């Protein structure tokens, strides 16, 4: 089994999985706390429509994935800010519209294109060196911005209006968060696919949520869980000859249910602080 790790493709896959797992799980903390779970799902499908259009017209698929992803999150954020429609309704409309566009673009292609389906279901074992550089570069950018603005992002996840009232530029930070969600989705498309990237964002943060009451610890736990399940999933996939995306997500889901049952929050729920 150890022979596997000597292959270049396996080393690339593990590195890509670790980066994507870490990135998704950190942005996932803010997505879960700010209640943007559905935005993650909608964005991944919008980004896939961009990929499909890229293959149809011969443009770089990742560039159009970013354009579609950003257009979706910014429209969603704008609609919520204006209070015209609830966030889940607007993202639901964009989600299905972009998915319809993706199906339309695939239907317009003259020939069957396996690479497009690679972005839908993920194929971490086929990540190339160039793609690894793109994933690495975007991961550094997104994690760097999160680190730079972490205190503001935590505050808007807690209470955006309170943050605004305290002098934090909350509106700009909310749009930054949406932008980072879109970039994370695009970075992860090739590795876990448009359908499963949403799970990579949501599950590690939700698992960590069961285990701690501290924001900083939550972020560290989420990152550790994200990296461990992504790397573990790739190894299981290679050893057992299973598709990599489902292996990663099902491993993360198993860990989530373990955390739910063993959660210290469940055990402490009957013992609130006493005094005053």
């Amino acid at each position, binding site marked *: 089994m150890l022979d596997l790790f000597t292959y270049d493709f396996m080393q690339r896959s593990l590195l890509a999985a670790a980066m994507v797992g870490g990135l998704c799980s950190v942005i996932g903390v803010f997505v879960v706390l700010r209640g943007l779970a559905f935005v993650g799902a909608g964005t991944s499908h919008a980004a896939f429509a961009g990929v499909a259009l890229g293959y149809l017209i011969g443009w770089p698929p990742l560039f159009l994935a970013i354009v579609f992803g950003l257009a979706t999150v910014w429209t969603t954020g704008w609609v919520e800010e204006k209070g015209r429609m609830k966030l889940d309704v607007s993202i639901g409309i964009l989600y299905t519209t972009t998915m319809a566009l993706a199906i339309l673009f695939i239907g317009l292609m003259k020939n069957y294109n396996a690479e497009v389906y690679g972005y839908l279901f993920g194929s971490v074992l086929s990540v190339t060196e160039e793609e690894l550089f793109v994933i690495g570069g975007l991961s550094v950018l997104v994690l760097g911005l999160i680190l730079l603005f972490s205190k503001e992002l935590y505050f808007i996840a*807690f*209470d955006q*209006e309170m943050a605004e*009232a*305290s*002098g934090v530029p909350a509106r700009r930070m909310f749009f930054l968060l949406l932008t980072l969600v879109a970039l994370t989705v695009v970075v992860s498309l090739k590795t876990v696919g448009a359908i499963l990237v949403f799970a990579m964002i949501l599950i590690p943060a939700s698992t960590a949520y069961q285990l701690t*009451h501290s924001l*900083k610890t939550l972020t560290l736990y989420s990152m550790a869980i994200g990296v461990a399940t992504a790397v573990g999933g790739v190894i299981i996939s290679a050893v057992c000859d299973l598709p990599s995306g489902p292996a990663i997500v099902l491993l993360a889901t198993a860990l989530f249910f373990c955390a739910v049952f063993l959660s210290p929050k469940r055990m402490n729920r009957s013992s609130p602080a006493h*005094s005053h």
Partner: protein
Amino acid sequence: MSIARQEPIIRFERASFGFPGVIALQDISLTIHAGEFVGVIGPNGSGKTTLCRAVLGLMAPLEGHLHIFDCACEELRCHHRAKIGYLPQKGVVDRNFPVTVLETVMMGRYGALGLFRRPGIKDREIAMDALAHVAMDGHKDTALGHLSGGQQQRVFIARALAQQPKVLLLDEPTTGLDMTTQHNVIELVQHLHEELNLTILLITHDINMIRSRVDRLVLLKTKLYAAAPPAEVLKPEILREVYGKDLVITEKDLVIVEDYHHHH
């Protein structure tokens, strides 16, 4: 205290607020001076929360002017906002949000710090000092969700204090609390007003709880009906005009609903 001698810090000049077609507050002229304890009262939908959002700089006037710390509201920038400590209505925040008491209070430093600067030892000391003021320093590592409603209000007051504000703006701080806790929260606010010389703007429905503590009562119902010491505002004819004919004042100066008065 002699209010007139104090520096004016919040000035509404014939200001109206709302959205095009919907006026929440109309033609308000009001000056709040440094060091005042002001209670804001009025029936539901009278514009109390709009007044709160205006003072926070979240809403510019449709007409007229609003000056806060000699700065026009339209230009209210981050460093001015940090001078106003804000306690939002209870229920706005998720009780199960994974945050400790100290992490919550540290958020009060973020606006004053500005972008790119990380909180340091000094900020932590300010946060701990704020927790000591509300007698919650012993709970710094406790999860916010594990605290009672009254304790959570104390933590949010500490978060506002960590901004080192000049004004403390409290939006219905006693709603949803039992009677003893309500009393404790108001006592704490009065204590902070006296000890830190904070200007207090307290929005409430509980006239009886605050009437003996405030310098002035501001009575709203879309328009400003009164802004004067409690004895001048709590008159049957004024209350009847704002709340309707059911509100009366008893021999012991309690403001109650007329039906209750008749039955007891």
